[in-house]
């Protein structure tokens, strides 16, 4: 069992952790949404981020991806301090999905993924107007790569479907494909199985393993405990903006403080949750 408070030193070499967050604090007025959270992700690792509603998980995500500028603390990605701009963060190699799906709903599945290629392509206005060989090659490569990614997430048949016509589970997978199109080193998934049935959840799990097998690091926010404990190498539990515990799924699962944070202090409640966690049921 390792609590986070001690681990603050950042090794800035590329072989070390891909992402290091040091004492990240985010305050909105008087409210401290994220309170001095430190955190690191190694390449090829799947890390889970759990915590009760309002624990600051998504806020922490937004700090990592440049949507928010942390009030204090810093985020080092791949040996560089992250610029506070989502676009630059993507450029550096960190891509994300959204808790509430934010696809470009009136574009086709393929076009959605092609937008993800934007930051890795460079055709400017003049090449686009003149249509030189470079432009045509780049456009063809973009299209081919996007189709590959659609096949990768299992949406190869939906190329020309409008995103808004896709079923819910497919939309979540399309969002992942779009994120992967930016050639990331680290993917942050915000509740990738929300609203999915058990079968779709299992598919999502396989997909995340497949992504990891490509050598990418993955950070997942989830409420589905069975999903998280099956999937992750390490789990960080946030409670009221503070890092409560970080460790292997087994360690986190059995920690009384996690149970307390989710359910309360009553001994009956704790027993109830303990059994629930052991059975791997999703929490409320």
């Amino acid at each position, binding site marked *: 069992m390792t609590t986070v408070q001690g681990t603050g030193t950042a090794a800035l070499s590329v072989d070390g952790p891909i992402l290091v967050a040091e004492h990240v604090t985010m305050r909105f007025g008087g409210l401290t949404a994220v309170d001095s959270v430190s955190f690191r992700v190694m390449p090829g690792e799947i890390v889970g981020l759990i915590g009760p509603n309002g624990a600051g998980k998504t806020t922490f995500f937004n700090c990592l*991806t440049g*949507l928010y500028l942390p009030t204090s603390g810093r985020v080092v990605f791949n040996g560089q301090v992250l610029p506070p701009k*989502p*676009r630059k963060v*993507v*450029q550096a190699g960190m*891509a*994300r999905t*959204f808790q509430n799906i*934010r*696809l*470009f*709903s*009136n*574009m*086709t599945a393929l*076009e959605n993924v*092609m*937008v*993800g*290629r*934007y*930051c*890795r*392509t460079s*055709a*400017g*206005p003049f090449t*686009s*107007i003149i*249509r030189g060989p470079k*432009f045509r090659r*780049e*456009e063809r490569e*973009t299209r081919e790569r996007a189709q590959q990614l659609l096949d990768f997430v299992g949406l190869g048949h939906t190329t*020309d*479907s*409008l995103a*808004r*016509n896709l079923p819910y589970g497919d939309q979540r997978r399309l969002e992942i494909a*779009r*994120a992967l199109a*930016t050639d990331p080193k680290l993917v942050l998934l915000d509740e990738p199985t929300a609203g999915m049935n058990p079968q779709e959840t299992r598919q999502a799990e396989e997909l995340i393993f497949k992504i990891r097998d490509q050598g990418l690091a993955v950070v997942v926010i989830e409420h589905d405990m069975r999903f998280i404990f099956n999937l992750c190498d390490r789990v960080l539990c946030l409670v009221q903006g503070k890092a409560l515990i970080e460790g292997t799924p087994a360690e986190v699962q059995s920690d009384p403080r996690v149970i307390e944070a989710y359910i309360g202090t009553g001994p009956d409640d704790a027993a109830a949750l303990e059994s629930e966690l052991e059975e791997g049921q999703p929490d409320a």
Partner: protein
Amino acid sequence: MINIRRLVTPELQQRYNRQGRILGLVGGVLLIIAPFLPWAYSSDALDNMTVLGYPSPLQFFGLALGVIISAFLVLQQALTQRQKKRVRVGWVPGAKAAATGALIYIALILLSIAAELGGLVNIVYGGWIALVGALLAFIGTRLIPAGRTPTLAAATAPAPLEILAIAVMMAAALFAAAFALNHDDAGSFVTFIAFVGAVVAVMIRSGVMGWLSAVSQRYRKVLIFSAFVVAFMFPFTQGGSDANMSIATQVMIFAATAMGLNIVVGLAGLLDLGYIAFLGAGAFVAAILSRSAFSTVGFHPPFIVVVLISGTVAATLGLIIGSPTLRVSGDYLAIVTLAFGEIFRISMNNLDGTDGPLLTRGSNGIPAIPDLVLFGFNFAQRHELLGIPLGRFSNYYFLLLLVLGLIILVFTRLNNSRIGRGWVAIREDEKAAEAMGVNVFGLKLFAFAGGAFLAGVAGSVKAHQDISVTPDQYVFLESAFLLAAIVLGGMGTVLGVLVGATLLKLMPEKLRFVNEYRLLIFGLLLVLMMRFRPEGLIPNQRRQLEFHEEDEELAERISEEIAETGTVKGAT
């Protein structure tokens, strides 16, 4: 229409199907006969409708509608006996559209005669027969069941035939444009527009239009080429007359400017209410740098250089306005551009040597701008080509055609590129686009400044064509009309915006009553459009989807079309 559909129930149609056919045929035949009879007592109304046995052009169009009604009804009877046909033509829906069109057309002609000659008494028996024919055809066709929807769009013909169809369509468009412009009185113009509307309706209803648009998709290059040939040939139909060519060049400038604004509004989704200022900036730069005696600087580079300077100055203004405002979201841009348009006009008024430095000569502007001379070609002179005289305005028309073609090229190519995808993503969800690595601010600024550049280029030609440049040519109202043209035609499309710009510029020129009440009419038109067809006359599919977020059926239909053609129809 809805009321008629409710009135004539399917049961009624089943019962009176036969009678309906006979009535329709009788009406059609009456419409064929009537044009050979005199319609009016005096030849002063419309074209000469007093002659027995020799139809005037407008009467002839009535005859054409009669032929369509009769032929469609006969063909439907003759052809649907053989049920095995793969392709279904909408004979009955076509006949219905033709009959409705004929009724409106004949009614408009009779009203025009009455209005121009002073009362219904001036209508001769032939006119009444035509009206009765149209009425019978209308009632008759309404009583026939419509049958199944046409599937003509799926048909394919041999390549030469399809290309010929495109050529015929283009030739018809050229003829229609020339005919409409050559009729100066409001009555002829309006009735002719009604005829064109009727023919288009017949084509849509019978499925011909669907087939033509499918053919156009297959032969895009042919379509684009023939469209330019037709546009190029237009001055040759005018016989050297400058009256219509002057209007045509104004339409061209308006269309070119609207296409530029279309990049800003239609593609990038930025509301620019001061776009005319960029046109004005280009025009003033060109005027000041021209060899006019009233030019205020001593630097007179050749026109090619002036064009680039005009564009650059306009683009720089765009950058200055855009870079602070495009960072904030929401409607700030609209307010700032609105203010910028006014600031521009007032500044130009004040750069007169007393309130500010002498640059634009204030409200007098810069007159006596000489005509262009490009590569030894003097735009002021009349030229003869193939024995057809081409006046000064024709020269400018050709130049503007080039400019317009260039702007359309920029528009479509940008639309179908990485940059175009970025713009769509920004329109859809700005936050998500930014989070996916799209340079939101950069792309917006590029659209804004690029649009300004194109307006500046158009303005530099406009300065020479107008001969004088004054600040009051570039008022807010003009920006509003540009926007109206885009909204009316269809945001983000080429054809739609061209149609919108032509309608909006041509109507006030040709119809005096429209010119007097043009604000009222266009205002009403826009309100109606927003209520019934917010995506414009010829919609961009993506825009159509954006305007109908709830419409699942539409999304399904468009999805199928995309799967068939492999692209989202937008740029055409």
